[in-house]
């Protein structure tokens, strides 16, 4: 099922979202200095319905990984709430979370540092199960079947991470998330460190698991193409704020925010003629340089780079509003398709 478009739109009355993030704010550091600088995540809200995959897209500094950390409890939020199946887990410690809501797990980006090199694969997979009170023998059995479900032989439990390639390690990391039978998995750039052929293998595996198990995925990535492949809905972030959100195809094909357009236009496609046309269109649109001056405290953060910006953009932060299927935070959203 697909949740209604729009990040702030109320979720369906019929079912509680698997993951619900409301007005999340994260500031790094403390004291006066931190309060005067813009927060890493600024009033971000979204829902993920059961069985749904939401892509969180943005470039470095967009706050996407910080949101992932805040959802997981690795970074305490400054404001806002995080709910899993309606249960507020914002203030819970990590131990409390794992005891009371054991269905939130994670797969990280770097397959090399996400597995402890001193522990066997079995020890790594059994660890969360033992904490959940699963008996030793049963936990090993679950670990084996977890490995098999990601396409690895069960006897890999006795081996160490160094004996596996990058793609295999990422499968193991996925198995570690799966053994606890979670309902929600946060995927933080799970394929960006992998080569193209391995990336396709892992993406296909994730798609299979999503379909077979009805998992809800929060898929964090910098690559819109990858996000579009796996997600039903996409949220585009820039400098900690939501620029646009909506169905993945709509956001990818008919952007309603100039920043989304800048992102899609900049991603090169491997077809020279098409890429030449895209490039010309992008250069004609007249985006400002990415290293342009920082935006002011009020208004839209994309102003210094935006070809559409006017005085109102500098003065007022645009609210999210629904246009077609997407909601967008742009005063001039109607003019974006003409760019």
């Amino acid at each position, binding site marked *: 099922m697909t949740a209604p478009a729009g990040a702030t739109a109320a979720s369906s009355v019929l079912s509680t979202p698997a993951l619900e993030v409301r007005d999340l704010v994260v500031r790094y550091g403390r004291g006066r200095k931190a309060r005067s600088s813009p927060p890493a995540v600024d009033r971000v809200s979204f829902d993920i319905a059961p069985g749904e995959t939401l892509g969180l897209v943005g470039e470095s500094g967009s706050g996407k990984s910080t949101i992932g950390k805040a959802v997981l409890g690795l970074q305490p939020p400054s404001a806002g709430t995080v709910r899993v199946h309606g249960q507020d887990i914002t203030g819970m410690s990590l131990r409390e979370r794992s005891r009371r809501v054991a269905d939130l797990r994670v797969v990280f980006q770097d397959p090399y540092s996400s597995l*402890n090199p001193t522990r066997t694969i079995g020890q790594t997979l059994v660890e*969360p199960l033992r904490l959940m009170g699963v008996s030793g023998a049963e936990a090993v059995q679950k670990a084996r079947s977890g490995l098999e479900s990601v396409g690895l032989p069960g006897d890999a439990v006795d081996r160490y991470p160094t004996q596996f390639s*990058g793609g295999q390690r990422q499968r193991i990391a996925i198995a570690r998330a799966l053994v606890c039978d979670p309902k929600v998995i946060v995927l933080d750039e799970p394929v960006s460190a992998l080569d*193209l*052929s391995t990336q396709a293998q892992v993406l296909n595996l994730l798609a299979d698991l999503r379909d077979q198990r009805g998992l809800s995925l929060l898929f964090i990535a910098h690559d819109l193409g990858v996000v579009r492949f796996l997600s039903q809905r996409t949220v585009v972030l820039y400098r900690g704020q939501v620029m646009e959100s909506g169905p*993945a195809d709509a956001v990818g094909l008919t952007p309603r925010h100039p920043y989304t357009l800048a992102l899609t236009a900049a991603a090169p496609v491997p*077809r020279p003629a098409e890429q030449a046309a895209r490039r010309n269109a992008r250069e004609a649109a007249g985006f400002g340089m990415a290293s342009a001056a920082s935006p002011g405290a009020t208004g839209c953060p994309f102003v210094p780079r935006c070809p559409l910006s006017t005085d109102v953009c500098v003065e007022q932060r645009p609210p999210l509003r629904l246009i077609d299927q997407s909601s967008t935070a742009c005063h001039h959203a109607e003019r974006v398709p003409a760019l």
Partner: protein
Amino acid sequence: MSALPLDAAANTDLDAGRPSRPGRRLPYFLRRPGGLFGAVWLAFVVLASLTAPWWIPYGVAEQDLSNRLALPSADHWLGTDPLGRDLLSRIFSAGAEPLLGAGITVLVAFGIGLTMALIAAERGPRVERVSSRLAEVLLALPSTILLLAVIGAIGVRIFIVMAVLGVMISAAVYRVMLGVAKSVRQRLYVDAARVNGLSSLRVNLVHVLPSMGTVVAVQAAQLYGISLLIVAGLAFLGFGPAEPQPSWGFMIQDASSYVFSNPWLLVPTGVVLALTVVAANELADAIASRGSVARTTVRRRRPPARVGATATAGARPADPGAVLDVRDLHISVDDGPALVTGVSFALQPGRVLGLVGESGCGKTMTARSLMGLLPDGVSVSGGSIRWQGRELVGLSQEDLSAVRGREIAMISQEPMVALDPMFSVVYQLTQPIRRFRGVGRREARQIAAQLLRQVGIVDGERVLKSYPHQLSGGMAQRVCIALALTGEPRLLIADEPTTALDVTVQAEILSLLRALVRDTGLSVVIVSHDLGVVADICDDVAVMYAGTVVEDGTAAAVLDEPAHPYTQALLAANPHVADGEPVPTRLASIDGTVPPPGEWPTGCRFASRCLFAQEQCTQPFPSVPAHGSGSVLCTRVEELSRADVTWTSAPTTGPAGHETAPAATQPAPTVGVSR
């Protein structure tokens, strides 16, 4: 990312806790002579000292006044002291106290220092700031003099004094361990364990500490040596066991009075003490050597072989119009496997050539060989690189450095570390400008400002005054390009120039490179794993797989009508669909991974992963012409193109995940049938 085995060795310190291989071999640090000596000597001294009361030939106070200050003899193996007491007996009776005392210091120092470091690393900046300030104060206190104050106050209670020393040294331990603990805590498996709900104690014990094991062992061994010297020093000053009880320090103090007449007296005690400290330090060095075994010494660059003329029959003929003509290039690890074999390509002036493939395919090595900048221990082992008609293979480093910067320049993958952090941008730009163009300081600065404008930097004056850490990634890459332009080169080698950058910045940098080619007639070799980047900027492309070129030709021909199954597979695995096309529910993928150097099969190296592989693919075969001036290395290429097949594959679940590739001789599916 290169998959070179050598590069793994660069990463010394932390990948410590890696389990040793099965089998009953000695631990790695005992396989080095220093480590073996250290461990054996320490074990001997400790054992001999602790058991001294049961084996020493004479009592420590037993005087033989007729035999004073004797040299070694059958009765007294190490001689006697001024009172005729046996040195051997005294030395080993004296050993227990310093050996235990130093142990106490190490235990206390680590008990406090390591614990504090783990806490500070876990609790974050606020706790860390406080504990680090405290450590800094403790470190700045003159510890030996403070120890005198302790002795003055409580007397010579050596174990308490050594414990106090441990408290003071704990600051140094804290400082080293904090850095290590913080870097271990940044590893994602720590976060994964926390998300799993492990208690903080278990996270530290199971996931953080084991990875610090090597550093802890090294530091502890060094600290033990230092502590031994301090106990002995205190005893030398008279703050040791009272006569007639022996102590190493006081025995040396005693010997110093007889240095004019009986210098031998200095030798036995001094040597035992020094050897024990040397042993601790050698053991530390041996433990620290993990990971750097492959390069205990900096390897001298071996003079490159003159191999220019050895182009084999398979290589294509020279290309007269090309500025750069690479033929049958072989690169290998010295005394090791080949990394690149038989690579040939030619570059016309003003064109952009892309070397594309997955990591471990040899594209970066190929690019670096063009400037003679291969890593230590890797060299060109055959073939030819002709630059404007001149052979570069076999040139000395001096001759090559005349070419570098002036004729061929390079930009690298990580702009943030490619600039020297210690020097301002203006220095780093004007320095080569003055060298290349023979101009003065003032004029060089003007040229630098102009170059920055040329690479699209608007506020050049501010950037000139900056240091690299003050620049963003995109800005740093622009400065790197400006730097590469200082010598007005004719060829630019760009190794993954945009991989570390955001996609919008990547587009800007690619536009900049394209403008430079258009405006200056520069030729470019660009290394990339991203076929989109290749489509954007390259005129020609060479697709590399496992150290060889499998397909080359114009970018349009190769990308729009790929002939080699590997090229087809790479394109099919790309999740970026064309506008207007639906997103596939599953991506085509390639089973397995690129085989590492040294494990390449004969015949087609891609055969084991190829959907279309057959018996004939396991035999060697030559490349065939394709795409006009290009070529393709596939023995079935004609057959495949007649049958009009494309690379599609079933989703990879189940056995597909076994990345250990099946043997190439396996019966392959027939053409057109997708698995």
